[in-house]
């Protein structure tokens, strides 16, 4: 469609400067969409007979739930279902097998490697990576369709196992080999990369198979409901209470899965949180999270329950430092659409010739079914009117029309804070004053309902994992008690950015307690100190600028970048990412003393990690085609040559935010769960958890043993930057305020 736009329209489109979506995310989402009842039949049509038989029991379970209720059916599940994180439910009646060894094949610069496999009684999981896909093999226009042929497994007897939602159907127990056939690399253009890959795989029973977590039956417990108008502290009837249907015991805690109703008779409810609020026996609200693989857990039986006017919920939490029983609350908001027959009319005279765009004050209070609201003003515009209405209490909207005139369309909305509704209506020709207005269709928030239940495990939890002596685990999912923590102060500098408006980002230099602030730019990002702390390097309107702190002078460089950059410890080398209009990017290096431009990598999605301590080499990452694996690359600035060191296999596919420590000993990165932080030595030999499920959204090194980890707190999702000493896990509080993010800290 973009071809139909004229030049100015194309400019409008380009002015948004939007990135393209990640192809692997797009594909993965499609694969992970839940299987719904309405589509299940068609989906089953594609399965092999053996898989259909093994799935039949799951479907029978779903049917049984309708007949006898979830609890009794789930009681049967535990006898044969286990749960493997990131894999899903597994049949415990069959021993698990794994890949004997990784299998790799390279053709014309493209490498496909099967890294692991897990064979269970009901499914086959396969993990493989693809590196080296060139830019020209990836569709860059919507009219271009990449390859969509799915890989499959070919068994020794010739049987084909087609790809399913999470992997492949089960490989029969008696078969210990298969061939992974990849007709083409998903989403690549035909003829641009090698096709028809065949990788022979061998499977073995092994103690390396992952341990499955127990899936436990949950007996129904009394549920109570409390509304804004009345409290009913008695068990409620089944069908309008919160229920826990399944429990998975994890190494550190539990995953609870349950349901809440979305209707009660003719009353409709909305959930405005998607997880319950849980407090322990002392009344303390505990930290919870969505399991990383919730899409795998919350399937089969619960998706069937959705069809019964129930909403499924799922939550994970750790049990360190909490006491049972737990109280589980889930809030629902009733929405009431007042009888549309009830209405009120009003005639408004705007005078002779009202000025366009100038509001005419009306200030008239009206009433529908006892609900009062006020028409504040009417503003004429070229072909219509805009009405400003002050709503009251829990009113959320009211309809307005001019009687006798057909509108072409209307738009508007409600400011939830001021409760002022603005509605604009357009007409073929703007009606003349006086206007005969009609107000109707009033909508009001109804009762707020909180459903509660109590829960404690039926059996004691297995012993919690004990941290090893050299563990660097400094943060976990338990909310940090900040009382008594030292605040960052003393000598040094702080670089912060502040989002004043959606499109404006101030970069501010200050002392460590935010004193003596200097605004460096109103449209910048990514700022860092020179190693000696005398200068600030930052991006100002897409161009690198250098601020001399002592002289208070700014020098604009001729380096254009819209993204992260890294300065070497000797203050000479500057590595940055250049992004291009076609969506591609490259890592470049220039020197601040002699200039020059050296292309380090043109590989798709390559990310900077940082310079080695001696300033003679650079570390960067190259993602696999599906972004779930990252090759750690080392670029020698003397030889101008890159070498692969090792592969990070447990990082997030979203924003890895990898950074090298100033002594180039560790690389810190966000882990696969998007919440933890891991350290890996730069030779790839040692790996440690630094923060576990701590909601870390950003990381930045300050010194060899000091790192800033910015965590998202449970209080309105506020960000809290913490300065953590990785040697002793002491934590200092870094100044914070709304919309402000820490860019860098310099401590002499």
């Amino acid at each position: 469609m973009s071809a139909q736009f004229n030049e100015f329209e194309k400019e409008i489109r380009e002015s948004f400067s939007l990135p393209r979506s990640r192809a692997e995310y797009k594909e993965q989402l499609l694969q992970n969409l839940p299987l719904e009842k309405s589509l299940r039949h068609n989906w089953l049509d594609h399965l092999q007979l053996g898989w259909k038989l093994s799935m039949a029991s799951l479907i029978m379970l779903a049917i049984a739930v309708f007949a006898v209720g979830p609890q009794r059916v789930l009681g049967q599940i535990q006898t044969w279902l286990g749960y493997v994180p990131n894999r899903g439910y597994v049949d415990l009646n069959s021993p698990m097998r794994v890949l004997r060894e990784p299998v790799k094949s390279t053709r014309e610069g493209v490498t496909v490697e099967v890294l692991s496999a897990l064979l269970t009684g009901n499914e086959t999981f396969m993990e493989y990576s693809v590196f080296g896909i060139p830019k020209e093999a990836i569709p860059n226009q919507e009219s271009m369709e990449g390859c969509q042929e799915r890989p499959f497994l070919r068994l020794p007897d010739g049987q084909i196992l087609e790809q399913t939602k999470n992997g492949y159907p089960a490989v029969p127990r008696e078969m210990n080999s298969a061939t992974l056939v990849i007709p083409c690399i998903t989403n690549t253009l035909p003829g641009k990369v090698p096709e028809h890959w065949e990788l022979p795989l061998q499977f073995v029973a092994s103690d390396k198979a992952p341990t499955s977590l127990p899936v436990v039956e949950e007996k129904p417990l009394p549920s109570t409901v409390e509304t804004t108008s009345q409290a009913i502290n008695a068990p409620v009837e089944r069908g309008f209470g919160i229920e826990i249907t399944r429990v998975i015991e994890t190494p550190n805690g539990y995953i609870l899965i349950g349901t809440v109703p979305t209707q009660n008779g003719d009353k409709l409810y909305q959930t405005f949180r998607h997880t319950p609020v849980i407090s322990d026996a002392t009344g303390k609200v505990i930290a919870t999270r969505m399991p990383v693989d919730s899409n795998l857990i919350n399937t089969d039986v619960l998706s069937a329950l959705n069809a019964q006017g129930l909403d499924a919920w799922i939550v994970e939490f750790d049990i360190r430092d909490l006491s049972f029983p737990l109280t589980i609350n889930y809030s629902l908001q009733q929405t009431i659409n007042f009888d549309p027959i009830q209405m009120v009319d009003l005639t408004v005279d705007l005078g002779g010739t009202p000025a366009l765009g100038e509001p005419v004050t009306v200030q008239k209070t009206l009433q529908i079914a006892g609900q009062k609201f006020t028409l504040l003003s009417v503003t004429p515009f070229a072909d219509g009117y805009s009405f400003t209405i002050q709503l009251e209490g829990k009113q959320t909207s009211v309809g307005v029309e001019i009687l006798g005139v057909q509108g072409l369309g209307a738009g508007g909305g409600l400011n939830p804070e001021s409760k002022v509704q603005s509605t604009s209506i357009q007409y073929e020709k703007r009606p003349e004053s006086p206007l005969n207005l009609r107000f109707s269709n009033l909508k009001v928030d109804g009762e707020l309902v909180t459903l509660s239940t109590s829960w404690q495990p039926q059996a004691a939890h297995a012993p919690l994992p004990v941290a090893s002596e050299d563990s660097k685990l400094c943060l976990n999912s338990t909310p940090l008690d900040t009382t008594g923590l030292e605040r960052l102060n003393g000598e040094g500098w702080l670089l912060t950015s502040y989002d004043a408006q959606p499109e404006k980002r101030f970069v501010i230099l200050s002392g460590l307690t935010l004193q003596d602030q200097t605004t460096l730019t109103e449209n910048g990002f990514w700022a860092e100190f020179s190693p000696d702390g005398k200068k600030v390097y930052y991006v100002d309107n897409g161009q690198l600028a250098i601020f001399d702190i002592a002289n208070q002078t700014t020098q604009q460089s001729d380096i254009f970048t819209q993204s992260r950059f890294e300065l070497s410890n000797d203050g000479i080398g500057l590595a940055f990412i250049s992004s291009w209009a076609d969506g591609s990017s490259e890592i470049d290096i220039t020197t601040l003393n002699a200039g020059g431009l050296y292309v380090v990598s043109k590989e798709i999605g390559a990310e900077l990690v940082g310079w080695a301590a001696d300033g003679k080499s650079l570390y960067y990452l190259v993602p696999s085609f599906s972004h779930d694996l990252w090759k750690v690359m080392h670029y020698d600035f003397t030889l101008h040559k890159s070498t692969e060191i090792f592969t990070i296999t447990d990082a997030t596919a979203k924003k890895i935010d990898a950074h090298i420590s100033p002594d180039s000993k560790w690389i810190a990165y966000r882990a696969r769960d998007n919440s933890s932080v891991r350290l890996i030595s730069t030779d790839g030999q040692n790996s440690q958890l630094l923060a576990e499920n701590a909601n870390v959204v950003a990381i930045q090194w300050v010194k060899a043993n000091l790192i800033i980890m910015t965590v998202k707190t449970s209080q309105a999702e506020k960000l809290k930057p913490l300065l953590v000493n990785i040697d002793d896990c002491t934590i200092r509080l870094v100044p914070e305020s709304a919309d402000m993010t820490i860019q860098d800290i310099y401590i002499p």
Partner: protein
Amino acid sequence: MNKDDFSTLYRQHFDQVYRYLFSRLGNQQDVEDLCSQTFIQAYKSFASLRDPARFLPWVFKISRNKLNDFWRRQKPIVALDDELGSGSPNLLHSTEELERHERIAQLIRNLPEKDQELIRLRYLGELSFREISQVMGKSEGATKKSLYRLLAQLQSRME
């Protein structure tokens, strides 16, 4: 309609929804979360959609509802570097072009929200006038008229 129909429509229209959501949210993580919610909801309710030609306005309505839920639930958060890594042009584009784009962006930001939404749906969502009218609850004629008026207004301010 079955799963294959959904997959086809998903592949055809995913990028339009993604671009629209990115223009509203500005960071990849939230965009992916809402994109997932939108298509999961669409997938769940797909059986209720009888006419595949209405898929695009239908899925945009879902994404706008998800956005409303999102804003109600939480204040948008910009983490370190969250907004970076975009495909913004730099070396390839001249300073004049960048300045002109920035000027257009500024003009769009100053428009009333409903006009910004019209632009987002048309140029990022690539919806037809008929589809926009279905999403916004206006007539096709009024939608067309509003957009042409907006374009003329923007163009005159750029001259």
